[in-house]
């Protein structure tokens, strides 16, 4: 085996090892849950509202009846959706498929049920 072949061999081995390490490390990472799609409110205490969530990781655009609010998801005691004017706390999507958003400042609850996922598989 000449020096060049050995060099290539080492390059391929080290690249494979690095990639394996990256994939191992990454498998422990937790990305935010995927809430993107079309939702509507189901709780009785609020007016029926249509909500669209557009999400890229922790960056969320909450569109309530045409009013878009850019928010950011933060993981503390459960997920918190922080916008410029208000914050929502949530436990995420429940077993029955509902997403409950609670604004403690105004004691408002929003219970959302997904009507459609984001179009063409994207978020």
């Amino acid at each position: 085996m000449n020096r060049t072949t050995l060099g290539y061999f080492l390059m391929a081995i080290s690249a494979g090892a690095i990639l394996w390490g990256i994939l191992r490390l990454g498998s422990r990472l937790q990305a935010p849950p995927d809430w993107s799609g079309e939702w509507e409110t189901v709780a009785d205490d609020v007016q029926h509202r249509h909500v669209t969530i557009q999400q890229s990781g922790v960056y969320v655009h909450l569109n309530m009846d045409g009013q878009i609010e850019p928010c950011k998801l933060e993981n503390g005691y459960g997920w918190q959706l922080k916008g410029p004017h208000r914050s929502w706390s949530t436990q995420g999507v429940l077993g029955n498929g509902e997403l409950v958003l609670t604004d403690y400042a105004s004691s408002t609850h929003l219970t959302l049920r997904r009507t459609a996922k984001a179009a063409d598989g994207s978020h």
Partner: protein
Amino acid sequence: MVHISPILTLLMQIGIVLAASRAIGWLFSKFNQPQVMGEMIAGIMLGPSLLGLFWPQAMAAVFPPASLPLLNILSQLGVLVFMFLIGLELDPKLIRNRGHAAVLISHASIIAPFILGSLLALFLFPRLFNHDLEGHMRFTAVALFMGAAMSITAFPVLARILTERNLHRTRVGAIAITCAAVDDVTAWCLLAFVVAIARADTTHGITPALITAGASVIYVGVMFLVVRPLAGKLQMYYDRTGRLNQHLVAAALLLMMASAYVTEKIGIHALFGAFLMGALMPKGGKFVHELSVRLEDFTVVFLLPIFFAFTGLKTQIGLLDNVELWGYTLLIIAVACAGKFGGSTIAAKFSGFSWRESSAIGILMNTRGLMELLILNIGRELGVITDAVFAMMVLMAIITTAMTTPILHWVYPRKLFGEDESAPATVKPGFSVLIPIAYPRSGAGLLELAGAIAGRDASQTIYALHLRPPVDREAYRSGIDPEPEAEPLQPLLAHAAKLKVPVEPITFVTRDVPGDIARVAEHRKCDLVMMGFHKAVIGTAILGGTVHRVLSQTETNVAILVDRGYRGAKKILVPYLGSPHDTLAMEVARRLGAQPGVQITILHVVAPDRQMNAGAVKVVESVFSEPGLSEQLKFKVVQGEDPVSAVVQYAKDADLVIIGVGEEWGLESHLFGFKSERIAEEVENSLLIVRRHHPLPAPMPLPPLPGGERAGVRGETSQV
């Protein structure tokens, strides 16, 4: 709301997309950017990032959501045929005959960005991606996809840049094009693997991935062992009939569709199937070349802009609405450049290139262009990347492509490899004429006249220059023309061989024809640039358009031949008013006078009742000072109000009129034909319009006459 039928909506959409894409593509090409860059940006402009942002009603009217599925199908069909074309263009020789340097650089230019892209995924995954609870290998798909997306090189755009800058004949260009071809094949294979992994995510663990892998191996085996020989039969059929008939086109398209169908069904995406089918078509013959020519115009002009528009509709730059997101965008661009540029540059340096050449290779490999958009669309469609990451990566693709040409120009300027580089070695002693030839069939008259002016001495040189503007097809495909480069000059060279006039051909691709004529003339130290006049599409001025720009940019003497059947001149008329350009006209005539039997008439036009100018006599005597010319020279003084009319009248008896530019003659270089060019229009014989930059050297001395008589000027006055 007004209901518009789907077909009307589609026609309107396609019309707007085509117009915008052609217009902005053209605009970008004027700024030395690949046309495809402009077309990509046109697509983004029609989407929510610009039109939707400033005029949402218009965007909603032009692209109503219900119409998008149809547009999507057209766009998918476009990229399918395009990938087939890319496969057709793939030259297996580029991949097989790689030298040591190409092997190292191509491997490094894939591995480095792949690892860095995967590493970047570690940082971005918790921030910009979402965890699908059903998926078991979500990060794996994201990391591998980011790696593959960072590794891509836009082979077609790169080839276009190389051709435009005439780099493709250099060592740097050859290495870059080879590495790009290898990267393309590798990246598409990697992507097929990533797609299989990503699709397996949403189902049940590793089993579907293994099934896909097994099916892929069988598919590739069948393609090589069964389909490839079958495609070879198409070549044989073509060779037998000698033409590409519609049955052959249909058979090739059927094979492509079948291959795409199978790969989509297996789970490694239809685009891979189309690409592989194209790559396995028989290479080397005219069949593939003709097939790609047949398919490309409709694909590139009609279908690809729809793909760009559809990509633009999905690109929401508005999502990047805070500093953090723009920071991530910059990080993605930095990692993309570090991986591709850094990896290739270091590998090239390691392979023995200079730092400057290594950087040029790195910059070229960093071009991503349209191929990146194809990959990104697949990633978005699979749900591997989010909307914000899609927008960031589209920006990265545009920026890395846009930066290639200017940075390459800065790092690896043309003087290092182009015409200027070889200047000291190629400049030849003696008189030299440069004749730029625009069309293959033109130039016979120019050549004969140039040969006569240069003389038959061995030290004289005639350069025939053909500058080829880049053609549209090169915006997307390899653009390395398989035809011999000097092909357009062949008729001229054959004519030169017949006349026994030695001609040195020069051919290259340029966007700046007048500028490069000037540069070649300067570099070769030509004494005279002589070009023909071709009637312009817009404007009628003889000294307008390209001719105007050559006249104003070239730092040597220039002559424009208005060829009205020139086949040698025995009677030459040189109108003279006293300008330096008129003196050049006499000098050119003097060189022609070195041929036996040539009669030269100097026509000096003066105001009525005035005698000839003594200064004029001195100039004529100094130009025609050599012994033996007096017999051939006639100095005619004409009194008249209108010098132009006098020239037109006396030109009737001449085979060739040589005249200096100048307002006195109604001949001045200008862009449009605002001024009268009466002489050019009314003189019935061939006309050579000259513009002086420096004096011409004297021709080889004529044999002295008995008694050593010098030329003397004897004026003969008449009135017009």
